[in-house]
Every structure is written in structure tokens, then in C-alpha cells.
């Protein structure tokens, strides 16, 4: 049986350690016009909106279950809406089971006990659906390799983004070298659904660093369960990381990857990353790193959205 996972920073290492292979459907864009739409408020997290539409339209029926990451913004609400839509008879019977998955990014003893209890619940639930544990493919080495090649200017930011998306969704990646040049850029802020902005930035310089990729790579680490849970707890880029480690970790990343300019962007209804923007702006100013705030941008930006940004001027 096939299992999907929804949410940024999927704990692939943790799941792999308990024998679960999950295909990441977070970036799948589903069109409007489904039976679920009348219940979706316009300010809902756009990834949550999309997965609900996908489930309602039957686009995800190949999966027996979708694991919703409570610690990913919007994913908890997506799961609750999926449950409620099923209760109301709006969700088709063939839609995947929506399973709430709590993996706290913390390693204090209480959190550790809780995480293990949650994983026990997960395996019981999946077993009830017919799942059997199997060997899961570790993604961490390939994700780390993509980070390194992107930073080295061997592959473009867009190619790296697409490769990570394919990899997480269960595909195979083989990205040929395509050397980049120019000022070294970092794209920070809220996660994006496609590589349109990345491609535009590739035309301006070397898109050497992507916060979304750092989160994904951290979350995928760990082969044993202990190591994988520790990796979750230590992920400074996890959206709901309870420790104040984002800014110091980002400072280190900007230094390691020799970033010249930060490109900051967010979702129009962002209620999380914006609280960090002034600190990142000030960090950049203190380090002599350029700062460009693109403001609000749709999560699946179109060519018109990108053109409206006048990136050449904004990044100059």
C-alpha cells in the first residue's frame, strides 16, 4: 500500500526508521472547483487548500493514507478539515485516510516519550489499514548532495528544487551539472510550491542556498530512530522549532555558503515567517549582506507573478 505525507520538513528519517516509506505530496498543486472549496476559507494555508482539493477531486486516491504533519504550518488544519469533510460526506469514499502525525521537534524526556507513543499509534493505525513495515529508501544523502552541488554552483537553484521535489515524491533524480555564476543568493522565508522564482533568480546570479532545502535536508536525517528523532529536535529551520535557534543557524549558513544577498519572500496570508523578517534583515545588515524583501508572493507563482516583481531592480 502507498502512503503519502503532507507538510514541509517531512521526517523521512524517522519514518524510514520504523519502516514507513511515504511519498511527499505537499507541493502538488490541485485546481479549484472541488466539493471541498465551499468550506475552505480564502486565507487558508495554500498548501493545505491544495491537498484538500486534491483529496476531494480524487487526485490522491492512489494512496491509502496521508500523514499530516502537525508541526508543519497549515497541515494540522488540513487534516482536521479532511476529517470534517469526510464526516459530512463531502470527501469521496476513495479518498486516502487522513492521519494526524505529531513529531515534536524537541528532545526533552517528555517530548521523547510522546514522540515514541505517537509513532506507536501511527504503526498501529497503518497496520489496521494493511500496511507492513519495509525497508525505506534513505533520502538524506541525496538531499545533502543536492545542497552541496547547489552551493558549489554546479546546478541551478531551480534544478535543485525540482530534483528535491521529485525525490521526496518517490522519483529518481539525476541532475546534470549546469554551472552558475554571479552574485551568490539565498532564498529565505516561507516555502514555495514551484521553482518559478528560483529560475528567475538563477538568471541573476548563483542561487546558492534555499531555506526550504535546509529544512527538508535536516528533517530527512537519521537512519536509526534515535538519530532521526534527534535530527528533528535539532532542526533549526523547522517552522515550529520551540528553541530560538533559527537566527544563529541562519547566520552560520549565510557564512558557510558565502551569501552576498538574501531574497526574502512570504505567502500573502503568512502568519509565521514574518515575525522573523526584521531579525533576518538586521542580521544581513550587520554582516554586510544585501537584503531584498519581495513581500507577498503566491506559493505557486506564475510567470506573470515573477514578472511583476521586477527582480532585476529589486535584486540590484
Amino acid at each position: 500500500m502507498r502512503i503519502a505525507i503532507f507538510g514541509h520538513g517531512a521526517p523521512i528519517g524517522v519514518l524510514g526508521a520504523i519502516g514507513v516509506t511515504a511519498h511527499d505530496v505537499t507541493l502538488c498543486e490541485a485546481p479549484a472547483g472541488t466539493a471541498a472549496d465551499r468550506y475552505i476559507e480564502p486565507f487558508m494555508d495554500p498548501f493545505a487548500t491544495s491537498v484538500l482539493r486534491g483529496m476531494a477531486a480524487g487526485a490522491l486516491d492512489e494512496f491509502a493514507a496521508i500523514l499530516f504533519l502537525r508541526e508543519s504550518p497549515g497541515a494540522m488544519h488540513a487534516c482536521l478539515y479532511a476529517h470534517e469533510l469526510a464526516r459530512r460526506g463531502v470527501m469521496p469514499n476513495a479518498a486516502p485516510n487522513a492521519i494526524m502525525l505529531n513529531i515534536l521537534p524537541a528532545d526533552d524526556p517528555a517530548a521523547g516519550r510522546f514522540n515514541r507513543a505517537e509513532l506507536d499509534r501511527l504503526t498501529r493505525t497503518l497496520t489496521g489499514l494493511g500496511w507492513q513495515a519495509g525497508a525505506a529508501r534513505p533520502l538524506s544523502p541525496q538531499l545533502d548532495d543536492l545542497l552541496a552541488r547547489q552551493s558549489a554552483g554546479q546546478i541551478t537553484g531551480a534544478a535543485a528544487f525540482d530534483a528535491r521535489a521529485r525525490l521526496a515524491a518517490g522519483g529518481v533524480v539525476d541532475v546534470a551539472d549546469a554551472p552558475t555564476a554571479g552574485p551568490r543568493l539565498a532564498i529565505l522565508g516561507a516555502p514555495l510550491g514551484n521553482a518559478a522564482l528560483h529560475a528567475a533568480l538563477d538568471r541573476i546570479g548563483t542561487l546558492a542556498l534555499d531555506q526550504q532545502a535546509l529544512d527538508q535536508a535536516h528533517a530527512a536525517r537519521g537512519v536509526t530512530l534515535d538519530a532521526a528523532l534527534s535530527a528533528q529536535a535539532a532542526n533549526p529551520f523547522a517552522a515550529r522549532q520551540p528553541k530560538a535557534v533559527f537566527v544563529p543557524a541562519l547566520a552560520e549558513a549565510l557564512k558557510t555558503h558565502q551569501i552576498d544577498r538574501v531574497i526574502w519572500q512570504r505567502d500573502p496570508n503568512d502568519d509565521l515567517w514574518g515575525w522573523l523578517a526584521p531579525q533576518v534583515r538586521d542580521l544581513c545588515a550587520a554582516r554586510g549582506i544585501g537584503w531584498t524583501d519581495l513581500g507577498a508572493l503566491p506559493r505557486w507563482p506564475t510567470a506573470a507573478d515573477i514578472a511583476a516583481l521586477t527582480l532585476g531592480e529589486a535584486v540590484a
Partner: protein
Amino acid sequence: MTYQPLPISAEAMAHQRDWAKSLRAQIAGGAKFAFVNADTPHEIFHAMDMPVVVNQWWSSVIAAKQLSTWTLDRGAEMGFHDSLAKYSAMGVISALDGDPGKQPWGGLPDPAILCARQSSDDQQRLFQLYADKAGAPLALLHAPAPAENLPRWWERARDDWEALYGTARLDLMQAQIEELIAQVEGITGRAFDRDGFGAYMERIEQQELIFEEASQMIAAAERMPVRIGEQIPNVMIPQWHRGSDWAVAHAERFRDAVADRIAQGGAVVENERVRMMWIGAGLWFDTKFYTAFEEEFGAVFAWSMYLPFAADGYIRRSKGDYLRALAARVVTMNEQLHQAPWANEWLVKQARDYRIDLAVVLVPEADRPSGYCTNFITEDLRAAGVEVVEIHADMVDARKWDGPAAKSAVTDGIRKVLDA
């Protein structure tokens, strides 16, 4: 007939003023206080005699003093974009701004500890900003979700909370409460009195049961005896001091005053024609809105969440383990008001109990956890025969408030009810 406020309403307000004055004096005198979110275990701080400033209460004070526009504009100047939440943020922005001339009481000194629950995605970021500014520890409580939001929570939550909320989540919350106790012990130098805590929790339950009686009386009254503008302070001021002798006694006085008013045939309006419910947090900068439809239409706001939630949201029978009962109280506190099917089912039940004709739903788009579930709520209320008006506005952001448009929308809703 001119509406006469209950005499005890002034008593509640006076108590809060005295308490605020006393707190201000204590703080000015160097007393250590905690800055906490509304959905955290205040009981621990109260039990250890550590003063508490509740973030959302402080936010409502800022709004009521017409300082929200200044504060939120300052937030924009600091670089915080306009889609970010306001209700939980205004006190933090005010503290970061630090202008004593633009804060109630001339501003708060730095708290000795901050406490928030990660019930929404922004709390860890927001509270860390304040903790960094204050140089104070942040007690951040995890907020994992239940596997499933089981139906009819208000029936199960009082006794069957272990099954309703889940053992793993309760274990986690209880362990975090124990950690919080240790932190507060370290700050105050006082030991936590576990026996005394049990007695204190029993007084809280007593208080909430009294409020339940008051709620049932108001719901059943032929005509609405007390405006929600009066219900709210008579409930929430004791709730901020829950379990204290004054709070329990005031709850009794409120219940008795309501009973007297009903027995004497007193009512908000003589010719009550439409009963309304206000869904969402209080409209703190324009509370007169609640009375704007009485004279012309005989339309009365009869319900706000604060009174009925005192019982349903707080009564968790201890079964001998008071810290676990406290964990059960806070583990899902806010979510019950904003997540499906909890919120929609409970609101329909309340609308039926209160014989509501028209529901006015506040939809704060920049406070998404409070705005989610709106479409489930409106559909279920309409299915239950309740007319619904949505107002897209924020509970503390006066800049976004279009009073005439809101009045017009509610007026249209009232006319639909009257024409039906």
C-alpha cells in the same frame, strides 16, 4: 424602558481596577510577574502567588485605550507585515516599542517569565521576541493535535477527558506543567503546595458550576436580562482570578443578580424581537456595537462565548489528580472554540439553548486559527435555522474596522429574521 446595568457589574470593574492598581504597584515595587497567554495554566502562577499579566487581556486593554492603531503602526515600522496576527501580538509589539507614553500604565517592566502554548504556529516566534527583549525565560508548551477531534466534546470533557484528549498528550502536558512548577519555584523561591492546589482547583470548579447556572438561567429567560457587554466583565474578571475567594463570591453575586433580574421581569429591551449571538473574541475597541440594534429593532446580543465556556471549557473533574485535571483543562483549551467539529457542534448547541435567531461571526483573517472553521460554523448554524452574518474584521485592530458597514450587514440580517 432604559436599561439598568446590574450593580455588581460596577463592582467587578472596580475590583479589576483595584487589582490592576495593586499589580502595577507590586510591579513598580519590583515584584516578579509572569506574562502569559490565555490558554496556559495560570493556575500554577496563582497557586504560587506570582502575579500574572495575560497577553490577550493586556491586548484588549491596549485596544480599549484606543492605542491599537499606534501600536500596530509601530509594528509595521519595525518590519512586521500586516497579515500577521494582532490579538496575541499587540502586547509584544507594545513591549518592543517601549514608549511609555503609548502604553497602558506607562508600560510594563520586564516579566520574570513568559509562558505560551504553541496552539498556533506563530507563538514560539512571537514570545521569543519578547523573551529576548526581557532577558527572561520562556516556558513554551508543546501543542500536539489529537488523533481525531471526537464529537460532543463538552459532554465528555468533564469526566471522560482521558479518552477525549488522549493519554500521550495529557502525559506530555502534565510533564510540562511539572517543569513549569519547578521554574516558578526557582523564580519565586516558594515551594508548590500540592495539597493546597487541590483545594484551589475545587474552588475553581465551584466557580465554573455557578457560571453554568447563570448561563442556563440567561438562556432560558423569556427576555434577555443582561447585555453581553455586562456578561463579559462579570465572567472574565473572575476568570482571570479564578478560584480566589473574591472570584467565587462574585460568580455567586452575578448568578443571584441575574436570577433577581429575571424574577422581576427585567430585560435589556421591553419588546425583544431578535436574539443574537456574537461568535469570536470581544470587539474590544468598539463594545458599543453590541447595543446598537436594541432600540430600533429590539435585537439583543444574548450570547458570547465567555459565559458558557466558563463551565464547558474549564470543568475537568480531578479524580484525585489535580495536575492531570489541569493538563486536561489547558491541553486543548483554545482549539475547542476554533476547530471542527468541536466549534461548529458546540455553537449549534449553544444557539439552540439560547434560542438564537441571528449569529454574527467575527472572522479575523489575520488571525487564522481564529478564522478557520468559519464555513463549517456558518453552514451548521444555517442548517439549525439560525441566520448568519459574517464580519471580516479583527478583535483589536481598529484600523480595519468599518463600523457603518458592519452595522449595515447586521441590520440586513436582522431584517431577514424579522421578515421570515
